[in-house]
């Protein structure tokens, strides 16, 4: 991602990292702000197909760090407007690409953060999303027909953010499809009926149930235990049994547990330690694992997880929508969250 063209002139003194914790706050701000500047062009070209999501990751992380004003609102909104497909109403990741559910959600999330939904044709988005629902309740990601529980989450997240859940899709069938992806062996969810449980997809399904006010359908204790089991001795979380820990699973596991009111079942201190160990102390940004190169995706999920853990100096984040809580409040949205038992 390159934010240099969105960034305002900066006067950040990165040596003045006066944090009393071990979070390299200003380095991360600088990392996001300058992302792409020092990277070779090849990497930038390669990520064109997901640029809209890249902007969402950066904008959200900066807002959680209370530094949203470092990016130029107007040029980002102009960019988003240019990415809306005039035919389908969906959003492409970048001009010259085809629209897709994934980038449509990213675009709507950014616009909500900037309180700028009036800048685009929201009715066209509703038509795009509802048009992708299938008879069995599932959703296509785009016109080519890939089905995945990720797209079920995207669909209800978009419609919730637009305040258009009612009367646009068949919610009952959508819920039935997601529940058909729940595995009897471990209480988790996969991408399709029968597919292996995977923490990223569990987040999508638990988030989906939170948005459709259907959390009562979950076997909370069983799924909660499986999610807790993802914590390894390093403190980090993996996404499936016998896999390596990864900072992005800090978000997916932790947000699912938070929605289910079971955040306290894992060791917050050990996880915090693991996440902080994945910071790049020189360039800023978070990597997937300690010692690896940082990227913008893991930077948002590292910051987001720290916010869920109540880290000082970060704004609260909504576990269902992965957006600043004040934005969700401003929209008057209340995704279901279970109380701590």
């Amino acid at each position: 991602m390159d934010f240099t063209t969105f960034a305002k002139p900066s006067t950040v003194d990165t040596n003045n990292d006066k944090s009393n914790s071990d979070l390299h706050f200003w380095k991360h701000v600088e990392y996001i702000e300058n992302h792409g500047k020092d990277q070779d062009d090849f990497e930038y070209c390669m990520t064109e197909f997901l640029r809209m999501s890249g902007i969402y990751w950066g904008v959200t992380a900066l807002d959680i760090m209370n530094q949203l004003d470092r990016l130029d609102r107007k040029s980002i909104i102009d960019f988003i407007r240019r990415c809306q497909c005039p035919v389908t109403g969906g959003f492409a990741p970048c001009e010259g690409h085809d629209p897709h559910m994934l980038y449509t959600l990213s675009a709507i999330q950014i616009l909500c953060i900037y309180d700028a939904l009036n800048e685009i044709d929201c009715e066209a988005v509703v038509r795009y999303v509802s048009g992708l629902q299938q008879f069995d309740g599932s959703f296509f990601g785009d016109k080519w027909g890939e089905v995945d529980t990720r797209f079920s989450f995207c669909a209800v997240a978009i419609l919730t953010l637009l305040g258009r859940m009612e009367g646009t899709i068949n919610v009952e069938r959508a819920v039935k499809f997601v529940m058909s992806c729940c595995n009897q062996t471990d209480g988790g969810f996969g991408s399709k009926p029968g597919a292996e449980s995977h923490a990223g997809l569990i987040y999508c399904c638990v988030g989906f149930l939170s948005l459709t006010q259907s959390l009562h359908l979950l076997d909370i204790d069983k799924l909660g235990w499986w999610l807790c089991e993802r914590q390894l001795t390093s403190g980090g979380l993996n996404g499936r049994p016998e896999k390596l820990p990864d900072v992005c699973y800090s978000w997916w596991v932790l947000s699912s547990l938070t929605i289910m009111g079971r955040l306290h079942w894992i060791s917050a201190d050990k996880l915090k330690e693991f996440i902080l160990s994945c910071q790049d102390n020189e360039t800023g940004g978070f990597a997937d694992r300690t010692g690896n190169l940082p990227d913008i995706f893991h930077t948002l999920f590292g910051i987001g997880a720290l916010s869920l853990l109540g880290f000082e100096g970060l704004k609260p984040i909504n576990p269902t929508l992965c957006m600043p809580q004040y934005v969700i409040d401003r929209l008057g949205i209340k995704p279901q969250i279970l109380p701590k038992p």
Partner: protein
Amino acid sequence: MSDSDSDDWSEEWIPYSQRAEWADVVPLAQDDGERPIVAIAYSPKFREVFDYFRAIIAHKEKSPRALELTADALQLNPANYTVWQYRRDILRALGSDLYEELDYLEEVIRDNAKNYQVWHHRRVIVEMLNNPSKELELTEVALERDNKNYHAWQHRQWAIKAFDLYENELTFVDRLIAEDIRNNSAWNQRFFVLKHFGLTPEVVQREIQYTMNRIRVVKNNESAWNYLGGILRHGDHGTVNRNVEVISFCEELYASGVRSPYLLAFLIDLYKEQCLQQTNEADAEVLSKKVYNLCSDMSKNHDVVRRKYWQYVADQLKLKLSEK
């Protein structure tokens, strides 16, 4: 991001602008709008290929040379789904030999086994051909390289479901579990296959034996224990405490000194269920004590990191007993 190592251009690369057969095409640069807000310094090769790609899209050209151009573009960026979509349009328009496309994809998948777009393209082509004869082998090769590759497992499940290829799948799963007894993907596939054939009481009994035998080999195997619980709950209406053989199997493991958290967790579930079904108060108390002791042992010794969970489990039982 893809796994590909896409920068390996050969020395013989001839730019499109110098190829006679492309002389009639005017490349189309990326239009960044009035002010270029996303200023990109593309590499010359990347820029050229995609400028020509934009030009053929603009002219809706669907020709053999356009098909070749998409292959160049996809070598540069196999995750660019717009290129894959246009490639499909060309294949349809030309009525191309789709078996050749399968061969091409086999290579691309070998280098990009964790790329959503490639696998999806493969699926669309197989659907167009209505012939899944190469899919089991293709995914088998991908799983030999990474036995938990989610994309490969998804594709395999899709092919099996869509074309009814369940017949020999259990043999395949057996082999994978034999190679890596902790492979959760393989255990999941086992459940997927058996659910299709029907989890009859005989099958449940056989699976219980199978799983206990695997647990005897590796006691601390999360996947096997989850599988055992899933199979038992399926056969016994949501409980794990009715199979005498499993109960004595677990108690023997415990008595022999095994303290795997998965064994203890299983025993806790089992005693908890028995305790709540128990009408005799004294017996219920003995069972509840067992649960409390195991929970305490977990939170103090064997699963300290999740101690709050184990306290919760003990508290829940106390609460339920007091409501009884």
